[in-house]
């Protein structure tokens, strides 16, 4: 499941946490949201962007074992 969490602070600044996105889907979704928000009168200037660690992304997508390079199977 894709989840986006926005935190709006008392000055109207926003932090966004995109989770459950694979590949570049996240950036595309972020761009769609920015366009929609501009149409709703809210211009958003990016202050910082931090991609999540591969292990975190894998866990969000339910791929923890494969992404971390762990062997899966029986011996």
């Amino acid at each position: 499941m894709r989840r986006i969490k926005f935190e709006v602070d008392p000055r109207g600044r926003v932090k966004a946490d995109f989770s459950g996105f694979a590949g570049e889907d996240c950036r595309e979704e972020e761009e769609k949201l920015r366009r929609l928000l501009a149409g709703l009168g809210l211009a958003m200037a990016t202050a910082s962007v931090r991609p999540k660690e591969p292990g975190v992304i894998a866990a969000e997508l339910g791929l923890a074992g494969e992404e971390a390079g762990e062997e899966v199977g029986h011996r």
Partner: protein
Amino acid sequence: MSLLTAYSTQIRVAPYTGPETRSHPTWRLLEQALQVTAEEFAGELKEGVVDYYGNYQACDFALVTPIFPRGLGVKVSPATGEVRFLYDPYGGYERHANRLRDSLTQNYTALAVAEALRTLNYEVEMEEERIAGGPEKRVVVRGAL
């Protein structure tokens, strides 16, 4: 890839071109944000503010509350849609006026984010969290798809 992103924001509504402008989505959001802010501060929406001397000034919207009875006026630039605030802080009202202005900006931002997420078919939840040690709040908007 998943991201953690921070943004600064600026509100700019549709420039006023006539009475029909008030039904534009950006004006409806602005009015909705003002209503939410008015409820938070036990205030009400008016059409103008007064200064220290009691002189009245008409605005596009005005928010009058018990802590700032002169009112916080909102005027939209007819040329650019820029949202400007009009108020008289004389006599120690600067802090109250700033709180109302910031709360309005915060509520507008949260409502816009929620509406954008719904447009993309996300299920949306909104909640408010008090920030420890003060009267301010943080608004959390969650979308799931």
